[in-house]
């Protein structure tokens, strides 16, 4: 087995056995932290599709997380308040069923990604970065203006969604749901980047002019990737809404997009599995450093600057020797 396969297996084993071990050790809060890490890992890995493979530097990725989260929250709000979401063309009362809310969240985020991507991908480079940022900010203000769903203060969920009788309020159960989502995404994304579609996207990310010279319309492939990444981020958002039982427009603030990028960078650009590690490191650091000093960001900032300037390989590359698709 290669170093990469060993690392992934070790990681997988660790993640699978974490809840029982944590419970035995008397540290049940670790399970919640781990759920959070997995959710962010999913969001970061979906961003890696854009950043590491397609060279689409989207500063608006957090918006899709937010759309997914709000979809869950709004559906829950209406089901709990016994007030229909809409009455025409048919009466729909909202839902608290995970089998419905999670796919709907993914689809709404994907739809938002379709619209934003269709407009933004007509540009490249610095324009693209600024435009994705601007659209995400637009969504941020849009959700703030929704007074009915909490506006600036956000919206609480009375309880987590229910899934086929499984009580997602139980942190272990919820953790495994998140883990399944992450694993499914990683498998799908892995297949995607190694397929013909993925080959075209990687080529377009590397040398878009040449791809066009080969007669391939790179726009379609990039847009499809953008939508897939956006939808997956929406799924992460839906899980996040369940995890914290609270959503607010702050979820789609662009600084969150920045943090996701940092996670991708830390873990390794263009590796898919790296961002998982990156999320773990970033969130663990955030949690531990925050205990020592509320001003931990003053160390994080320069650390990030130095890492970017001097050390770009990321942790995954360091562990496995795999320099990723861009190494």
């Amino acid at each position, binding site marked *: 087995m290669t170093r990469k396969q060993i690392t992934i297996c070790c990681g997988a084993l660790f993640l699978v056995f974490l809840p029982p071990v944590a419970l035995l050790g008397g540290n049940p809060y670790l399970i919640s932290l781990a759920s959070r890490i997995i959710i962010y890992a999913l969001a970061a890995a979906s961003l890696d599709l854009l950043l590491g493979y397609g060279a689409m530097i989207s500063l608006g990725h957090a918006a899709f997380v937010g759309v997914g989260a709000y979809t869950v929250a709004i559906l829950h709000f209406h089901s709990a308040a016994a007030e229909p979401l809409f009455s025409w063309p048919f009466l729909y009362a909202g839902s608290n069923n995970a089998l419905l809310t999670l796919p709907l969240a993914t689809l709404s985020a994907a739809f938002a990604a379709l619209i934003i991507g269709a407009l933004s991908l007509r540009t490249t*480079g610095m324009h693209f970065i600024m435009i994705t940022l601007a659209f995400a900010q637009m969504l941020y203000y849009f959700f*703030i203006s929704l007074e009915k769903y909490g506006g600036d203060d956000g919206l609480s969920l009375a309880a987590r969604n229910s899934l086929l009788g499984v009580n997602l309020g139980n942190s272990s159960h919820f953790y495994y749901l998140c883990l399944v989502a992450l694993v499914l995404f990683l498998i799908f994304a892995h297949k995607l980047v190694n397929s013909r579609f993925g080959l075209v996207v990687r080529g377009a990310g590397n040398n878009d002019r040449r791809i066009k010279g080969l007669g391939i319309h790179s726009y379609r492939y990039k847009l499809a990737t953008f939508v897939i990444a956006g939808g997956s981020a929406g799924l992460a958002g839906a899980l996040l809404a369940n995890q914290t039982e609270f959503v607010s427009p702050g979820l789609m603030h662009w600084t969150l997009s920045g943090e996701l990028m940092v996670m991708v960078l830390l873990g390794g650009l263009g590796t898919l599995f790296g961002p998982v590690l990156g999320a773990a490191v970033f969130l663990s650091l955030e949690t531990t450093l925050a205990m020592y000093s509320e001003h931990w960001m003053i160390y*994080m900032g320069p650390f*990030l600057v130095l890492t970017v300037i001097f050390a770009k390989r990321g942790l995954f590359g360091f562990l496995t020797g795999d320099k990723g698709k861009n190494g």
Partner: protein
Amino acid sequence: MLLVIEQFLNGLQLGITLFLMSAGLTLVFGIMQVINLAHGSFYMIGAYVGATVAALTGSFLLAMLAAVAAAAAVGCIVEILVLRHLYARQHLDQVLATFGLIMFFNELIRIIWGRQPLFMNVPGALAKSIQLLPGLHYPTYRLAVIGSGLLVALFLWLMFAKTKIGMQIRAGSSNREMVGALGVNINLLYTLVFGLGAALAGLAGVMAGPILSVEPGMGESILILTFVVIVIGGIGSIRGAVAGALLVGMVDTLGRAFLPSILRTILAAATADSVAASLSSMAIYILMAAILVWKPRGLFPAHG
């Protein structure tokens, strides 16, 4: 009618602030081809230094000078220490590194000044209103901001059109290789351009201090508006910055002021108000999207 004029002036004032922010940034984009997310931090530094000096000395003029000097100084330091390493790097690296700078500056401000917003008083001499037209009183301070902005715009225009350095910058904005070939000291030119941009941002910050609140993170909200201005106006072009800034300033201000009334004529009051609230905050982004569909590179891109 008077209300329209008043809002028009407000829009102009916002436009001036945005112009000051975007002029420097668009030059940095165009000449150095580097995306700098930390530009908002210079705005914030200007506001904080200005507020502190104003409170200490009671002189707004001193505050302005201190703010501009501080922002310019920090800008030059940042350029030499960080940005220089990023010119040859990919945009992603630039985004991440400057994002790290934002984290650093926000936290630094919090450590020095705390989380609570600072209050900055309008300078005494300008604290009243002037009667512009019968029935229309407009705050003198805002008029002063508009006036200063116009002066700065004039100064920039003179500098670019008439001085040697200005010509070098303009040349660099449309053809970077030429600048080096002309024997100009590139490093010095870049530091100057960056410092100038930071100084303008600092000026925008100190002037906005009495109007908006001075708090950590204030740079980020204005930064995104600045990006919208640059995208609309075109990267690398001062003319674009002027056009974009005025457009954004007007659309945002007039939208927020008049959309509720306009919508009330079509929809029921409650619906109209909530739709208006959503629409007015989204207005400039919708404007940006519309312009992009028509002109993907902005209204007056530097490279044509």
